[in-house]
């Protein structure tokens, strides 16, 4: 009898130790399990598979697939496109974020919506928009033909498509960071005699440094990995207008085992890029969170007994 009572009391106290808002352990572990299983099946396994397939014909074949001329051309083109689009998007992103964070003006929310447009438009549609604009039958088609400028099915078209798709990344990352930083540091720089440019270079830019790098990395990953929009504008001229993702697709269409393995070799480079991006992203998120914490700290009111005059007197 006594034992019974005791056990019951124990049970009660156990139940109490769990907060009212918490689920039972069974539900908790079931949810965690589902999430883990999902990640494994849909993310981890395919990734491992890419590397497994790439190496299925041995290391030598793997590297041969990478250094064959068309692969090198694709890699070169991808680097070129990223090399053009990322800096341009950085300039644009900084300007846009600056405008959003530091000024109030009419049409601000419209501009923010516009910046997000590439997120909501299917990349294929984005590619088609440019074909409609710059293609032979397109709006500027005649003008371009007369002046012998090639955009569609050429490198400029690929750059344009990539620009469009990667457009929001830098701006989107910077706007909240710049808003959080506020304008006081910049005003302080002005009162100390710094020009607008020097203020920007020495104060504004360093204080959003991590956010900017974060944006650049995401932008770069997308610029190198974009398929849809680029596919529409590229024309798939092997060795000339095929970026890495397009070249992977072409190789895969080859249907021989060797070309499939080659496709996976090139794909593994893109997967590697994704992994590096992920690692950098995690690092930068951590860095930014710490930075933010510090910024909060350095604004907090001073604590009792930490300062000044009285201590100074004691010293003398």
């Amino acid at each position: 009898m006594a034992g019974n009572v005791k056990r019951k009391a124990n049970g009660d106290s156990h139940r109490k130790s769990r907060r009212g808002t918490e689920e039972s352990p069974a539900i908790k572990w079931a949810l965690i399990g589902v999430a883990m299983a999902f990640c494994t099946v849909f993310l981890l396994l395919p990734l491992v598979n890419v590397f497994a397939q790439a190496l299925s014909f041995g290391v030598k074949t793997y590297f041969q697939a990478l250094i064959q001329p068309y692969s090198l051309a694709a890699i070169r083109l991808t680097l070129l496109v990223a090399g053009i689009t990322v800096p341009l998007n950085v300039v644009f992103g900084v300007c846009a974020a600056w405008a959003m964070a530091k000024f109030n003006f009419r049409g601000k929310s419209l501009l923010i919506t516009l910046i997000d447009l590439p997120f909501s438009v299917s990349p294929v549609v984005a590619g088609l928009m440019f074909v409609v604009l710059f293609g032979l039958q397109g709006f500027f088609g005649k003008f371009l033909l007369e002046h012998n400028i090639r955009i569609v099915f050429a490198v400029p078209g690929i750059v344009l498509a990539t620009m469009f798709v990667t457009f929001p990344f830098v701006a989107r990352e910077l706007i909240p960071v710049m808003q959080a930083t506020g304008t006081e540091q910049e005003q302080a720089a002005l009162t100390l005699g710094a020009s607008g440019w020097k203020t920007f270079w020495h104060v504004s830019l360093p204080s959003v440094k991590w956010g900017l790098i974060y944006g650049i990395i995401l932008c770069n990953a997308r610029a190198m990995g974009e398929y849809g929009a680029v596919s529409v504008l590229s024309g798939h001229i092997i060795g000339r207008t095929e970026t890495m993702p397009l070249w992977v697709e072409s190789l895969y269409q080859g249907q021989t085992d060797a070309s499939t393995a080659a496709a996976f070799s090139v794909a593994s480079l893109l997967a590697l890029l994704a992994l590096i991006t992920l690692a950098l992203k995690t690092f930068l998120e951590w860095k930014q969170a710490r930075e933010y914490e510090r910024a909060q700290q350095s604004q907090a009111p001073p604590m009792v007994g930490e300062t000044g005059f009285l201590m100074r007197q004691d010293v003398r």
Partner: protein
Amino acid sequence: MSIVLKNVTKQFGGVAAVNNVSFSVNEGELMALLGPSGGGKTTVLRMIAGLEMPTTGDVFIRGQRVNDLSVQERNIGFVFQNYALFKNMNVFKNIAFGLKIKKWKRADIKARAAELLKLFQLDGLEKRYPHQLSGGQRQRVAIARALASKPSVLLLDEPFGAVDAKIRQELREELVKLHHELNVTTIFVTHDQEEALEISNRVVIFSRGRLEQVGAPREVYEQPANEFVATFIGVMNVLNTEVKDGVAYLGELQFPAHDQPNGTKLRIGFRPYAVQVSTDLTLYPYRAVLRHTFFLGVMLRLEFELPSGLTLRSRMTKEEYAQLGLEDGREVSLQIRNYRVLARDDSGLPPEKEFKYQPPPTIAEHI
């Protein structure tokens, strides 16, 4: 004159944040801009700095009209409310920033920074970043940075803003000491009247964008220019009386008003210390009951209720209180020694006089 403002108005979207303000600050003075929040004092400070441009009116620094000069050209030191230290730079770089911008020689920058680090008790901290400093150290870095290139004026926006009482006292004393040592013209913004009165040479009082009074702390306390100043600076008993046959009445209280016609409404104010108290019920003209005693440390605040229901506030030391043998509920007699007329006819504040202090009209001093 170090700084002169002449008829300065600043409008934000049609609303005058600062309305036709004129005052001057002497070289080497420690001046407080005081007022409730939204009074326009920070806007005035920012206009002196050049962070805001006046809509109309002129700002002069050392005789030079600076309206068309940018912040960079005005040679001012500005300390922001949250200090606004460059968080990506260490203490040394923060202090040296302005000097580098002004193209000082490396050796000179080093010497000046060392001098400031020593003056502000920051030696050894030059490699620290703002987040590694205490609040007081941060403020010292901010002031050192502002003073580095020897500005003609030091401007501080709510320097003791969100700081607890004890540290605020220390920072105040530190500012006074600094001002003594460097003798640089200093203007600071505060909403705390006690703070302004305690440390400044002179106070400029603002409310709703208008300048209410300029004067030494004692002057604005003892001779407030209008009702706003009277009630904003320190505690004041305010009574709405009506004149009848040369006497202003409210309940049983009477104030002589010889030259005032019948029916004139007078607003009369007096400080708590002007209320004299005696336990001898026949000594003073008014009877009252002590309702509440509040302990404020050395001083006590007393609330007396008159038979008509009026409540008057008074102040005395613990010793006086003990000597009189007072306690809540005790009946006493009162008199009011000094009072002044704050307003007439309920028409609001008396007409404004800028620049020069004008004592408000008084009828008579009672005793």
